[in-house]
């Protein structure tokens, strides 16, 4: 199994979620993160004090999938999340040794199906 971690622009969440659903992914965990990268933040001003917001709001999706779905998932994300402009984000693939569904105790691919 693999964990696919995807960092995207917040307003792309809906689209990526749907793209994943289309390739049969139903389990996703989402968190709000702040990103620091090539895309530069905007300036805010408070009473003359300039304040550069370097960390931009991003959304992280994580989904653990069986190895055979990896390609489809990556493709789906690439398509749905890309705007072509800087700051679109990244996909990271991380090995997962085991997955367990708490409710049933199912393990392995069954747990993430």
């Amino acid at each position, binding site marked *: 199994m693999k964990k696919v971690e995807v960092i995207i622009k917040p307003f792309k969440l809906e689209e990526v979620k749907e793209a994943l659903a289309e390739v049969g992914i139903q389990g996703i965990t989402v968190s709000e993160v702040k990103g620091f990268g090539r895309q530069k933040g905007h300036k805010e*001003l*408070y009473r*003359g004090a300039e304040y550069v917001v370097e960390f931009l709001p991003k959304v992280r999706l994580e989904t653990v999938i069986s190895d055979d779905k990896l390609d489809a998932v990556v493709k789906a994300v690439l398509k749905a999340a890309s705007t072509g402009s800087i700051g679109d984000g990244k996909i990271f693939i991380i090995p997962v040794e085991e997955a367990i569904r708490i409710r049933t105790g199912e393990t392995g691919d069954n747990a993430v199906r």
Partner: protein
Amino acid sequence: MLLDMLGPRRRRMVARLALAAILVAAVWPIAGFAEDAAPAAAAAAPAPKLDSGDTAWMLTSTALVLFMTIPGLALFYGGLVRTKNVLSILMQCFVITALVTILWTLVGYSLCFEGGGGFDSYIGTLKKAFLMGIGVDTLAPLALTIPESVYVCYQMTFAIITPALIIGAFAERMKFSAMLIFMTLWSLLVYSPICHMVWSPNGALGAGGLGALDYAGGTVVHINAGIAALASVLVIGKRKGHPTTPFPPHNMTMTITGASMLWVGWFGFNAGSAVAANGAAGMAMAVTQIATAMATLSWMGVEWIKQGKPSALGAASGAVAGLVAITPASGFVGPVGALAIGLAAGAICFWGVTGLKKMFGYDDALDVVGVHCLGGLAGAMLTGVFALHQFGGFSDAADKAGLVGQLIKQATACGVTLVYSFVASLILLKIVDVLVGLRVTDAEETEGLDTTQHNEVGYNFSA
């Protein structure tokens, strides 16, 4: 409880300074009791009678001015600090309200408004300590159409908001205990004499003395608080991280809400200062509204030009600047004067919180100096202009003094307030620093005042 651990050497120093403080504190009351002079101004009139309309408006005004401090100012300031200090701000405003109420009841009102003592130019007596002699039917000696109980309450709300304004300067780093002690001393030893000098019939600076005009508290409230704020940041020092780390407001919606409440409540402040429901109150309300609006647009305009975008904080700050500046003028100027005062106040105070502050590099956390001291000064001086009939004003006294004459009076009153309040505040702060220490530890500052001073946090959204 209140005293931290001290070494023996330091303890001796504390003892000495405490003694000094007590001496200073003792001067006023003693002075007050010294001589029971002849009955004050009023009297002789054709049997004063309570007016229910005036009373209704002053009851309302009292509620409005209290509303300015809690929750108005508390929210305005509270939104501007970092999340970890929000409760410390709200708490300080709330407890100052309680503290000053008690001080006012015990001696404050009497020191401010019960003249006739040997030092009547500078301070009142203690004859009305504990509000002694004020019954249900007593009319206010200085406003014979309303009960004195209402006058006591109304003036109390001014005595409350003035120290509360100061906390914006030393926000995010002062010990709660130190703040309490400082404010107790400041209220008695700085607010009382300034208030008496300006508003008591025989006060040195007001109508019965120098003749400076201060309708609703340009000197008494804003310059006074603003310069004490400067003293406080000089003594306590900068916040950790200033000026390299930015301290953006944690909740601008709270700040705008507070600013809105200040605006609305200020009608009680200025129109209430007519101490009657009449044309003077109406005109004071009108010019307050006009100057505030103009200052909002003025600050917004300058900011838009200088920094590319108009901010909500800018608009709110402009409004407060306008409210501050029109305060001393509100009973003396007309609509055109109000437009001018607002225009000036917005631009000047914008410079106060950007240019001036950067120039000197002090860390006035929430810009009490730039808005209240500077705005108060601008308002006080411009009052000397626009109070004259030739500039659309209504003050015969100003006409008589002439433009230059009145401006000198105004400048003198400002100067006295600046010097006295600054020096006295500095001394009191040093005393408190020695007594209990003004500042929290570095670790406490990093963790925030809410948990370290009050064992609480502002928000628990995920609970």
